[in-house]
């Protein structure tokens, strides 16, 4: 049974829908001492001067609360829709030529690399996926989820986005400690067992980063590797988005292989825009983008997979040289 916002007191509303407190708080309305009033009575008790001074709109505030409660109930009541596959049905490139494939299905637990020069159409591909294109975007592609034409909620919902993004350029900007920040994020996702979730994120992040950090560290003073690790762990655990797009991960301060397998263990689909052979060859397949379209899809060959080990060996050598330089040492042939 849902309560009528117009007929119930604020106390009754908050009792039944504790999340409504966030709405009232964000609208600068103080409930304390007014629990026995309805929102309408509260707003009517304010003088015209006060209403004007605080730029309040009575009707909009009441309708806003009704719509906020309805949307939140829908969000909480809804079974998290399991996304187990994503299909791309081909469209055309910038010149109108058909793309070099017919349809392509990606399943959870798969890593797909995206390669191609900047400006070739990577962000359009991502845009098509986020917008669950139905032959209504410039590429004329169609996106299916679990083999079907998806619910249109994916387009407009604030809380359910299909794609979460992690990129090299991203930094934390909020003035909060790691703990405060994770609680805030968990709260905005309406997560119930917050302490536990926060603990889990921290322990995974510390596992991925070379150097451990504390709960009390301000997020803005984390090192590059620590930030990356926290972002990955937080996104894997707290974000509802089933698809993660990674735009390069630096090869420093973080165990990239572990990070990827962690994301996959959370049943995500991982798309990775990268030209780093160590990452690209970790993918099951790679999408080659050219002139705004998908030019072809290449399956990682066994030869490439075998090469991966050698590439990693070379990389470890270079990393060691780097570390020696940092320590102020002289490089020798033997140390190479």
């Amino acid at each position, binding site marked *: 049974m849902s309560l009528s916002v117009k007929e119930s007191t604020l106390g009754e509303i908050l009792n039944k829908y504790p999340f409504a407190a966030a709405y009232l708080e*964000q609208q600068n309305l103080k409930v304390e001492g007014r629990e026995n009033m309805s929102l309408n009575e509260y707003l009517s008790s304010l003088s015209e001067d006060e209403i004007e001074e605080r730029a309040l709109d009575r009707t*909009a505030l009441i*309708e*806003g609360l009704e719509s*906020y409660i309805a949307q939140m109930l829908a969000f909480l009541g809804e079974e998290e829709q399991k996304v187990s596959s994503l299909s791309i049905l081909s469209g055309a490139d910038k010149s109108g030529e058909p793309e070099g494939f017919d349809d392509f299905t990606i399943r959870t637990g798969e890593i797909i690399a995206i390669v191609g020069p900047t400006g070739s159409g990577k962000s359009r591909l991502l*845009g098509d996926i986020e917008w669950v294109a139905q032959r209504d975007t*410039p590429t004329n592609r169609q996106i299916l989820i679990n083999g079907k034409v998806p619910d249109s909620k994916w387009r407009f919902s604030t809380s359910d986005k299909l794609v979460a993004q992690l990129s090299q350029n991203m930094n934390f*900007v*909020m003035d909060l400690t790691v703990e405060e920040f994770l609680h805030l994020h968990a709260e905005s996702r309406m997560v119930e067992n917050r302490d536990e979730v926060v603990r889990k994120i921290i322990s995974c992040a510390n596992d991925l980063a070379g150097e451990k950090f504390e709960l009390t560290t301000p997020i803005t003073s984390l090192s590059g590797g620590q930030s990356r690790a926290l972002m990955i762990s937080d996104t894997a655990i707290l974000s509802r988005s089933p698809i993660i797009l990674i735009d390069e991960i630096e090869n420093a301060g973080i165990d990239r292989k572990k990070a990827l397998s962690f994301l996959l263990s959370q049943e995500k689909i991982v798309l990775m825009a990268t030209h780093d052979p160590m990452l690209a060859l970790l993918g099951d397949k790679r999408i080659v983008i050219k002139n705004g379209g998908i030019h072809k899809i290449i399956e990682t060959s066994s030869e490439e997979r075998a090469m991966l080990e050698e590439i990693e060996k070379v990389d470890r050598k270079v990393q060691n040289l780097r570390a020696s330089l940092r320590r102020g040492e002289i490089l020798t042939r033997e140390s190479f």
Partner: protein
Amino acid sequence: MNLVTVSGPPSTGKTAVILKTIESYKKQNVNVGVIKFDCLYTDDDILYEKAGITVRKGLSGGLCPDHYFVSNIEEAFEWGQKEGFDVLISESAGLCNRCSPYIKDVKAICVIDNLSGINTPKKIGPMLKSADIVVITKGDIVSQAEREVFASRVHTVNPGATVMHVNGLTGQGSFELSTLLYDRSLDTETLKGKELRFSMPSALCSYCLGEKRIGEQYQMGNVRKINLEES
């Protein structure tokens, strides 16, 4: 002609988003013009011209730009009709958090950015609260978590709005935005008689009229005093 009013705090990416959105319209042969309202200075007209877009600008100088907007939008609208635009986009810098240029039955877009801080949605008044679409920019430089937290704050402040992420640099999201802005069946014939969504503050004090001296005896009109007793 469709009219679309775009507003938002300074430097949030209004021009960048509008430019990218118009790019999508060009391919669809939709003719778009822009009218830019600002306070003291703007270079935006040059940016629009460079992109081949017909633009006019108005500087409000001593007035609140939103007040200036209301007194000029009708003429701007008629100019757009004469030019034969399919869509006229007005861009105005929201400077005072109290006013907003939105008109009833005219699409209203607020542009804010992810860098502005978690409490910003709460601080911005009608400009955010009464927008139909809220565009959030600069998601490319903050974490996924901050994007999610920020969007959920925006949603709490304005549950009725469609919240969209647009990258002003790459244009990601701007095609999607363009599909929500233009609708031939929603042409506006005239602005005469239309109403603002939210009244502008009626406050007019001696300082609005050019007074410079500090002191009670110089203060006339609508004067409101701070309460220093309570905390």
